[in-house]
């Protein structure tokens, strides 16, 4: 039983995508399948409601997000029953109506899917017992509303209206979410039923005002209270079924529902009354007044709804049992008469093609049934007996009777206003048909002629008729209303409620009636003055504020972004480095500075080399010729290499020297294309460049000093010396590279491989045929035969020596400076020499195989131990042909092959690219 409760919202949502396809199968309008779903749910609700009628509540609570404490918890009590019944009953009627209203189109399935999703979500809102479940369904209704408003999205007004509605309601929703989270933290639970027990503690908590404000913002945005009401009229661009269902009967009332639901735990305080009631009253009057001056049928009804929402809000703000009951009665009545009025307006628009009231008139003759329906509903809206609307207005006045007179007066005034705009609404039926206007000889096509308009299809006025009859029934036989409202009020206030609406003719009732009728007629007659009122009221709207804020945020974003995101690398580097300098400086200033700054033990050799390196670096900056700068860089590099040598790092020295050479070659290749274009007076540099560079240098020097300071903690590298024998070598650096930290080297050679791939992809090799076609190579081989002969001799002699030495370095890497990388570079050098001499296609073998082999060998050395159950990259001593070889040799060999392949491949690419220029 309870599971059915839990399924109610979900069934509609899950059925949503099916409504269209199933209808297609049955060759029926998808409105029928949707109405069927709604009817089924209504039946289920009736079944579930049995215990609720006798005052009990139905509950369901399932695990959902236990770590946070969220549960899929639903409750069906009087309040939920009232709203759920409303949602489903009105839903059935609106969906039936929509069968005639919505013309077939390929988007229709999607329309009904959204309607069903909305219905399910709305049900979820009123049934939810967990704050987050409520919030999820709350936002889902906003989402569905967005798609429904934007149904005819070719229309820019539809797009704008949908966007505005969504942004305002979601913005309010997110703010509310923070309030709900705070509420849960203060109350210790996410479930509303558990929070009710903590109501006193919640209201006494210092966070209560904040929680209240945040939650109210959510409720007020959803229910279009002042100053958030501006999204509702823009939403009227939606098709009439949407306007009726969402924006008159259900979605906008979610805020009112929330106020009712949270009243027990947040309400009853001075703050609540002071915050909610005035907003409600202001909205009530503003809505009524603006409705009066509308020219659009749906606009009138929209603002009228705003006013109604205001009344209900004010009543819930007041919070007495009588006020709460009056609010519930009003919700029911309003749904009946406003729903009918919206549907009738839609029918009129369907037949006449316009919603502008000035262009309509005398429709009572053309569509008498619709006229009848609209009349009944209007009488109820105006608060005239014997309709339900009269009883609910009277209940509202009575609820405020013992409160401030201004509130009572405002309610009476709003009654007068609703009579006035009710008459305005009915004037399209009552008045005389408008004259077709002629403008400069053109016949105005806007005013429909009397002959072409007739009664709308049955399905368009019957659902409205049902609602209108219900509105009448609520007045004549209010028993059901009294009972339902009583249950709802009991659920809110916690005490059983007995609601009795018709006390017989009382002086108060008579006085109210008379004032309303009299005032209404007065206002209606004065309505031409109202245009000035309209301008005045336009000021009250936050709508323009929203529009300006929206535009301003977009423009502001553009300006701000343009300011700092200049697109220049230099600027970005200064931001980054400036921040880095600041972070280090501030951080160290706080924690202290440990460094050895005293120049102790300066040795001549290294000192001179250091100075040379520094000078070279400065020269690289000062050189105007690019070639000079490159050579200065080279000088710096070689000096640094020398420094390494002098500071007991021979391996690095060799590697650095070789790499510096290769780099120089690459730089020179890059420069050759430039010719003389780089000589010239360099433009003046802004002072910030100097400052930033010097600051960076200073901080770096300071950090270097900190690095040089000895620390008391023992280095892990101490252990390497102890394990060197186990690793089978004496050159500890090489051992680290190949064994202890071989995994670093694996990455290093991968980087090389990818770099080579990158270079090759940028400078793809020519195919052999193209190469053969080039005359240049042939010429080079013939020119200067003597030079070629010398070159070839040198190559023949020297290159094998280089290769042999390279292999030696590879083999003895473990014992002295050397290793795979240097070996690879040397072999590459030898190959380049040969290719220059012999002109043979450098690496006619496939470079990719060589690189892959190298990388594969290294990777294999890493991975194969895994297969043998050993850790990654663990080296062992292997027996190969009677000799004992460390497997790290294979790793190093892999490095060598990779380096050779990569360097040669890259060189070939660049050389060929250079030749092509």
């Amino acid at each position, binding site marked *: 039983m309870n599971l059915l409760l839990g399924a109610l919202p979900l069934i509609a949502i899950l059925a949503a995508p099916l409504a269209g396809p199933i209808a297609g199968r049955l060759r029926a309008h998808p409105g029928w399948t949707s109405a069927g779903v709604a009817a089924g749910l209504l039946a289920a609700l009736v079944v579930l409601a049995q215990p609720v009628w006798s005052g009990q509540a139905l509950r369901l609570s399932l695990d959902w997000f236990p770590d946070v404490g969220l549960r899929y918890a639903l409750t069906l009590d009087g309040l939920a029953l009232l709203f759920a019944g409303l949602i489903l009953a009105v839903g059935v009627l609106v969906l039936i109506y929509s069968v005639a209203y919505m013309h077939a189109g390929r988007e229709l399935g999607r329309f009904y899917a959204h309607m069903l999703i909305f219905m399910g979500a709305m049900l979820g809102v009123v049934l939810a017992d967990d704050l987050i479940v409520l919030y999820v369904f709350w936002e889902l209704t906003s989402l569905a509303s967005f798609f429904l408003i934007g149904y005819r999205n070719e229309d820019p007004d539809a797009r704008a209206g949908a966007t505005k509605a969504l942004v305002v309601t979601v913005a309010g929703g997110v703010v509310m979410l923070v309030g709900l989270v705070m509420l849960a933290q203060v109350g210790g639970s996410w479930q509303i039923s558990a929070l009710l027990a903590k109501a006193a503690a919640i209201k006494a908590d210092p966070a209560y005002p904040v929680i209240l404000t945040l939650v109210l913002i959510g409720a007020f945005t959803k229910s279009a209270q002042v100053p958030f009401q501006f999204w509702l009229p823009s939403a009227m661009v939606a098709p009439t079924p949407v306007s009726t269902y969402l924006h008159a009967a259900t979605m906008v009332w979610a805020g009112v529902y929330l106020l009712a639901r949270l009243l027990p735990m947040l309400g009853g305080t001075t703050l609540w009354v002071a915050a909610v009631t005035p907003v409600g009253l202001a909205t009530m009057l503003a809505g009524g007044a603006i409705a009066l001056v509308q020219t659009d049928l749906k606009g009138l009804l929209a603002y009228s709804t705003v006013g109604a929402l205001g009344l209900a809000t004010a009543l819930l703000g007041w919070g007495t049992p009588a006020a709460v009951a009056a609010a519930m009665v009003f919700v029911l009545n309003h749904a009946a008469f406003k729903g009918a009025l919206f549907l009738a307006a839609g029918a009129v628009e369907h037949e006449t093609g316009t919603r502008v009231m000035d262009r309509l008139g005398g429709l009572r003759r053309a569509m008498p049934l619709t006229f009848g329906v609209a009349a009944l509903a209007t009488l109820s809206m105006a608060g005239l007996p014997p309709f339900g609307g009269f009883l609910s207005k009277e209940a509202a006045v009575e609820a405020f009777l013992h409160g401030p007179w201004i509130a009572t007066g405002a309610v009476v005034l709003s009654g007068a206003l609703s009579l006035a705009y009710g008459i305005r609404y009915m004037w399209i039926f009552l008045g005389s048909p408008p004259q077709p206007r002629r403008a400069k000889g053109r016949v105005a096509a806007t005013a429909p002629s009397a002959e072409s308009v007739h009664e709308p299809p049955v399905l368009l006025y019957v659902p409205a008729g049902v609602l209108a009859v219900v509105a009448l029934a609520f007045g004549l036989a209010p028993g059901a209303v009294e009972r339902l409202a009583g249950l709802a009020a009991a659920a809110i206030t916690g005490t059983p409620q007995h609601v009795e609406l018709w006390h017989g003719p009382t002086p108060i009732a008579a006085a109210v009636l008379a004032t309303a009728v009299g005032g209404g007629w007065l206002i209606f007659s004065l309505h031409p003055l109202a245009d000035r009122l309209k301008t005045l009221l336009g000021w009250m709207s936050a709508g323009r504020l929203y529009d300006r804020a929206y535009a301003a945020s977009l423009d502001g974003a553009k300006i701000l972004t343009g300011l700092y995101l200049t697109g220049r690398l230099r600027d970005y580097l200064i931001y980054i480095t400036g921040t880095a300098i600041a972070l280090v400086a501030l951080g160290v200033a706080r924690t202290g500075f440990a460094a050895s700054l005293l120049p102790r033990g300066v040795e001549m050799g290294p000192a001179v080399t250091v100075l040379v390196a*520094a000078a070279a*670096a400065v020269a690289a900056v000062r050189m105007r010729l690019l070639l000079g700068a490159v050579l200065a860089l080279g000088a*710096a590099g070689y000096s*640094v290499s020398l420094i390494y040598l002098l500071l007991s790092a021979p391996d690095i020295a060799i590697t650095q020297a070789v790499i510096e050479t290769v780099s120089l070659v690459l730089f020179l290749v890059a420069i050759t294309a430039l010719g003389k274009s780089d000589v010239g007076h360099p433009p003046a*540099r802004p002072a910030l460049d100097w400052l930033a560079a010097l600051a960076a*240098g200073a901080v770096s*020097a300071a950090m270097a000093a900190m690095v040089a300071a000895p620390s008391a903690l023992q*280095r892990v590298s101490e252990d390497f010396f102890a394990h060197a024998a186990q690793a089978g070598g004496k050159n500890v650096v090489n051992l680290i590279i190949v064994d202890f930290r071989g995994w670093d080297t694996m990455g290093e050679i991968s980087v090389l491989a990818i770099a080579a791939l990158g270079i090759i992809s940028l*400078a793809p090799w020519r195919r052999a045929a193209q190469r053969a076609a080039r005359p240049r190579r042939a010429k080079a081989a013939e020119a200067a035969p003597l030079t070629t002969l010398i070159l070839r001799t040198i190559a023949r002699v020297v290159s094998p020596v280089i290769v042999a030495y390279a292999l030696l370095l590879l083999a003895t890497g473990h014992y002295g400076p050397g290793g795979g990388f240097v070996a690879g570079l040397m072999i590459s050098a030898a190959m380049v020499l040969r290719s220059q001499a012999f002109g043979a296609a450098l690496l006619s073998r496939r470079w990719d195989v060589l690189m892959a082999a190298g990388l594969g060998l290294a990777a294999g050395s890493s991975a194969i131990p895994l297969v043998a159950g050993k850790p990654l990259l663990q080296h062992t001593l292997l027996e190969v042909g009677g000799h004992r070889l460390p497997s790290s040799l294979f790793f190093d060999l892999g490095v060598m092959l990779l380096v050779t392949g990569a360097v040669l491949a890259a060189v070939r690419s660049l050389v060929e690219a250079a030749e092509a220029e």
Partner: protein
Amino acid sequence: MAALVALLVGVMVATGFYLLLGRSLLRQIIGLSLLSHAANIIILLAAGLRGGVPVIGAGPGSMTDPLPQALILTAIVISFGVTAFLLALGYRMHLFGGEEKGDDR
């Protein structure tokens, strides 16, 4: 000695950075190379500047910390790879040359 080397780091960072802030792409690459030299040297400083070549049995006295040396070797090779790639990129894409082109995007 350490102070001198620290100053060298500072000089290389300053010059490298200054070049990097300029407009000529090739000079920016030169600047990047200077910066990586600086980074390598600062790692070496972590070894302290004492001790001899870290080859067992190479000589008397204690050996210097070999770990920073291995780190530097890796860093040098990696920087080299990236620099070569950058040069190739600039060269092939005709990005070099012409101060007037600058590096405005």
